[in-house]
């Protein structure tokens, strides 16, 4: 199978505190550690496993600025055969539909049987995969946590639904699947792996190469626009226990006892 995996470079929420900048126009991006979106990493791992058992190739594509290349290269070090970088100044400010439109053009340049995305991103809402499928007029399934071949041109897939239950269906190829975390255990990528792919060429495609009108993407084409960022205040907030650790522990034990938390 020829598989394309769409990945995104995002601030790593396990490594960073995410805060809002002074005028609320963006998050504070200085000193942020970026990595590949967690869900996408599971999707790449799944693609590599499918290729290793059934043959074919894995291509990783990502849309974003210059630095996006690091993420593509990291996923190539995991085992993807090729990388493609979608970059163009007019992509700036695209909504989900703009990103999906650029990806659609890239999919149509290739000969793919299967396109995988992450089910969502930390700074998104799980929209690009479903939009891309609809634009290609391919079938789609969201939140996929199981994939197996099931005869010619058919995959058997599991979707994660409420309460940890799993919904099984058969889906026709070519299709787009959005991958849920936990579907596999993504392999570790060491420095040596990244060095191995350091000199591989990653083609860069902009709107000209993709053959799409600039007004289909970017802020001009966007129907949904972000205005500002703020920090929510959900509840009254916890009473934060202060003092030495010993004092905190004594107070906490007293509270837990009074609420029946220590039997």
């Amino acid at each position, binding site marked *: 199978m020829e598989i394309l995996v769409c990945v995104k470079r995002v601030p790593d929420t396990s490594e960073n505190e995410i805060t809002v900048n002074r005028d609320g126009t963006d998050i504070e991006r200085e000193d942020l550690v970026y990595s590949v979106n967690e869900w996408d990493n599971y999707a790449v791992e799944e693609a590599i496993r499918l290729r290793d058992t059934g043959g074919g190739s894995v291509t990783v594509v990502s849309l974003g600025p210059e630095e996006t290349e690091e993420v593509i290269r990291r996923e190539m070090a995991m085992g993807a055969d090729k990388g493609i970088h979608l970059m163009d100044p007019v992509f700036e400010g695209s909504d989900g539909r703009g990103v999906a439109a650029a990806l659609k053009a890239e999919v149509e340049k290739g000969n793919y049987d299967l396109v995988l995305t992450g089910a969502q991103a930390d700074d998104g809402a799980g929209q690009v995969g479903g939009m891309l499928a609809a634009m290609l007029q391919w079938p789609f399934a969201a939140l996929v946590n199981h994939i197996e071949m099931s005869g010619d041109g058919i995959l058997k897939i599991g979707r994660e639904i409420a309460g940890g239950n799993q919904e099984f*269906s058969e889906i026709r190829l070519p299709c787009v699947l959005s991958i849920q975390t936990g579907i596999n255990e993504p392999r570790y990528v060491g420095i040596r792996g990244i060095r191995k792919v350091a000199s591989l060429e990653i083609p860069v495609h902009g709107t000209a190469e993709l053959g799409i009108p600039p007004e289909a993407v970017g802020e001009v084409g966007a129907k949904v*626009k*972000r205005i500002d960022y703020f920090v929510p205040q959900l509840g009254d907030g916890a009473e934060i226990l202060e003092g030495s650790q010993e004092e905190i522990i004594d107070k906490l034990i007293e509270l837990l006892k009074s609420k029946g938390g220590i039997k």
Partner: protein
Amino acid sequence: MAQIFAYILHKDGVLDDTALELRAAGATLDPEAAVTAVVTGSAGDLEKVCKEAARSFDTVWKVENDALAYPNAEVIRPLMKRLLPKNSLVLLPHEHFGMDLAPGLSVALEAAYLPDSVAFEGMEGDVLKAVREEYSGMVRTHVRCNLSTGAVITLRPGAFAPDERKDKTGEIMDKTPEVFQEGLPEVPRRYLEMVEAEAGDVDITKSEVLVSVGRGIEEQDNLEMIQELAKAMGADVSCSRPIVDAKWMEKSRQVGTSGKTVKPKVYLALGISGSFQHLGGIKGSPFMVAVNKNPKAPIFQVADVGVVADILDFVPNLTEKIAESAK
């Protein structure tokens, strides 16, 4: 404003909790609007569901077919495209079905897609100002969504307070003939079966005291300190999603919308940031204590008591003190 539709989820003849949240959200969009409920399904429960929906919505559009017995987004999307008038506003819950149906539906309808809204803050002309969350709830954003060419809007379950009044006597209109005039659409994805999550050794939905662990535990070997604390407290151990994804604990121990819904008296959240998916699995307003090294973790907004500390350092000392005090 264009016509507003709410796609109603139902199971075993009962409306999903989100149905009344969609009603409330529709009224927020336009207090004057008559919101239409769209109910699809197969004979049997469908009539009952439509009657129930008619008590909360001005109009109910019913679509009935055996192929709709199980809600398969790949079947329902082309039918919705046939059914809905141009420039419609469509409301759906942002859960596993909504996430499956909605993005593609917005493309099919050539409408805007506004995913996972937690609040609406009014209209400016054709433009809706809405609130979304990013980075697991650590920050929120205001977004503007242009509704002039229609929109598909998914709502975070639980974010809009349900409108529980049963004050409507909506007309039930059977749209089946209209929708199936062109026959059943070709179905590229066929539903096979549902497999229920395996039951674990402990049923955390019945636990009175839960010690719950998240990403802050860092390594599998560190889980032992959580077991020891739970043992000293006489509590059961549960966890958040990353622990299950890493295969360190059974799925049956996971608290959250994709795991179990728990109702303990006391909930001790250790190294859990507090995503809405996790908090969505905690009901019954327990006494909640959060320990997290990040003072900005969203869990501190909803917990009763917080401790800003690294659990790897704090937990062993807490266990020791509890064990001592029990002597």
